[in-house]
């Protein structure tokens, strides 16, 4: 298929100060696949995700999205969503205002979709609470809600299952599985194995920090 969505990285490396975190990292992820980045703390998992999502620029090697380099590639940026430890939520805004802000940034204006998304993540009842009044788990859910308000093909998730309860984790996993089934791509870090997770069948593993 000519339009199969693929992200491929070739020979990436990352240097922090004087430390070489990793080098020679290569991978390919295509539609319906989930790349699970594993490794001990401080091995550069987050740095790798930041390279992929374009916050940091690659020093060696390159990342290609459907054959085109991802640097300053607005097509790639509009299809890639990055959810980090820092949730990207404004404390002074309510939950729904935070979500509306991101929706409008993407040029969409659809109030119903906002309510739907919050309901999907089971945080509709706190829609009008300020983000600073939300619990950590609710904030995580709200940051995830952003993935659903626009059509992102590639989800880059940094420790998505940290700080949420079992119910939340199941919810997140089912969202991820739905995303993969509809032809999405996921690159995620998670410090535990995903063997007993529904994501396991879509999963391939990339181990960092084996030196």
């Amino acid at each position, binding site marked *: 298929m000519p339009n199969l969505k693929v992200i491929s990285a070739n020979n990436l490396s990352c240097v922090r100060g004087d430390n070489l975190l990793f080098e020679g990292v290569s991978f390919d992820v295509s539609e319906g696949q989930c790349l699970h980045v594993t490794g001990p703390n401080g091995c550069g998992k987050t740095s790798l995700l*930041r390279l992929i*999502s*374009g*916050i*940091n620029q690659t020093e060696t090697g390159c990342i290609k999205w459907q054959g085109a380099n991802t640097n300053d590639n*607005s*097509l790639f*940026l*509009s299809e*890639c969503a*990055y959810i*980090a*430890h*820092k*949730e*990207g*939520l*404004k*404390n*002074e*805004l309510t939950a729904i205002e935070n979500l509306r802000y*991101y929706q409008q*940034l993407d040029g969409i204006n659809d109030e119903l979709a906002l309510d739907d998304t919050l309901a999907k993540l089971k945080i509709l009842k706190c829609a009008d609470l300020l983000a600073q009044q939300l619990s950590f788990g609710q904030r995580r859910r709200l940051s995830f809600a952003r993935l659903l308000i626009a059509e992102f093909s590639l989800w880059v998730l940094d420790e998505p299952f940290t700080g949420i309860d079992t119910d939340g984790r199941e919810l997140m996993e089912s969202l991820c599985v739905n995303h993969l089934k509809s032809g999405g791509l996921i690159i995620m870090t998670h410090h535990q194995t995903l063997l007993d997770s529904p994501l396991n069948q879509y999963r391939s593993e990339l181990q960092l920090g084996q030196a």
Partner: protein
Amino acid sequence: MFRNTSSLIQPLVFFIIIALLFPFSLPAEGLLLQRIGGGVIWVSAVLATMLSLESMFHSDYQDGTLEQMLIHPRSLSLAMLGKALAHWTATGLILTLFSPLLCVTFNIPSEQIWVLFTGLLLGTPSLTLIGAIGAALTVTLRRGGVLIAIIILPLYIPILIFGAGMLTQVAQGLEVTSQLYALAAILALSITLAPFAIAGALRITIN
């Protein structure tokens, strides 16, 4: 910004207090305050703008929204222009609106008040835009405020020269059009060029 009223009030109060410290510390000679008042107000405006800059990107950096802006397909420089102008309306614009009141306390004649007001109106957006470059460069540092001052204050000198110079000119009964044009030119330059510098600085500092 408007839900966080302290960031709105702080620069204004700082501006008024700095300007009002001068009458207390200077000899009470009849025309002295009137002569230096304009300059004092300009320096206070510069310092108050300076003070507000540290918080400009800080919360965005802390909560991760700045990273999200970096990887958004829309132009980062355009977003930064909007951010700087929004910041100006909450700091520089308010200072400017309050400046005539301070002029009255310095007993500055009314024809000079207008010159000061227009000067600040043209000058403070440039102060914010140029200052935002410094704020962007120091956003990842814990105590960036002093560094912003060291980087940015020298760049404020031209604005200060033209802005405060106008008042001396007017006091001597001379034309001030050239200084107004100069301030407007600096503003045009900073509106067009500073957003790119801010975006570039953010891309370098955040990693």
